[in-house]
């Protein structure tokens, strides 16, 4: 015949019970952080900076070209740059889309991308751009990239 015996092992001695609760609380709170935003990502901030510089350079170079020479300022002469920058904006959009709690930043990128496409289309339709329009586009984009940069940098703790 096999006898079995159950032995109860107390997890906490009666006097130490409140201490157990306290330790549990510590464990819970050590994991508990309030998260309203995604973690800061330095590679994304770097990409925002690089894309902003690229956009600024693109418009400054266009401004340097003789406005009377329609061919030099034509859409076809700079379509590669338009597409390269749009591709960077698409990449920023995708990288930010998969980050949780990131709807505000995603919205800023979406507005920037839509306006970039709009200005590209306007250039394509008009075939050339005046100094005034180039400067207006440059200033609008500068404002948007500044906003995008703030939205990422503020996530840094």
């Amino acid at each position: 015949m096999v006898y079995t015996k159950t032995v109860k092992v107390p997890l906490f001695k009666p006097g130490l019970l409140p201490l157990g609760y306290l330790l549990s609380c510590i464990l819970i709170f050590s994991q508990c952080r309030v998260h309203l935003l995604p973690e800061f990502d330095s590679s994304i901030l770097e990409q925002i900076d690089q894309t902003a510089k690229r956009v600024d350079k693109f418009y400054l170079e266009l401004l340097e070209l003789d406005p009377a020479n329609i061919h030099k300022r034509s859409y076809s002469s700079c379509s590669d740059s338009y597409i390269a920058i749009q591709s960077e904006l698409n990449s920023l959009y995708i990288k930010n889309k998969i980050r949780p709690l990131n709807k505000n930043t995603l919205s800023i990128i979406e507005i920037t991308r839509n306006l970039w496409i709009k200005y590209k289309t306007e250039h394509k339709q008009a075939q050339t751009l005046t100094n005034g329009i180039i400067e207006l586009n440059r200033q609008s984009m500068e404002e948007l990239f500044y906003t995008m940069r703030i939205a990422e940098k503020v996530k840094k703790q």
Partner: protein
Amino acid sequence: METINMNEVITDMLAAMKSSVSHHWKEIKESMQQFLAARKARFELLAELRISGELSQEHFESRLQDEKLIAEAEMQALEVISKAMAQNAANAAIDIFQKAVGAAIKTVL
């Protein structure tokens, strides 16, 4: 060519903002002044291009829609700033609580 007194226009814009928010004006006055100051150069350029005819009425209105989108993007950034501040404040409070409990345990042990 016709010119535009942008300072006068900005003052009128502030007056319009003030009348639309009435009682809350004191709370937002500074932010609204900054909002307009940041746009002053772009609004000046926009007005200049429309007056000179470089921008058609249709394109001018389209650019005003763009300004609304840029303002929307800035509101989104302000929301991120508010969330970051709230997150930091809440975590700082939890840290203090955690340290206080840790200190209490040390005295018990």
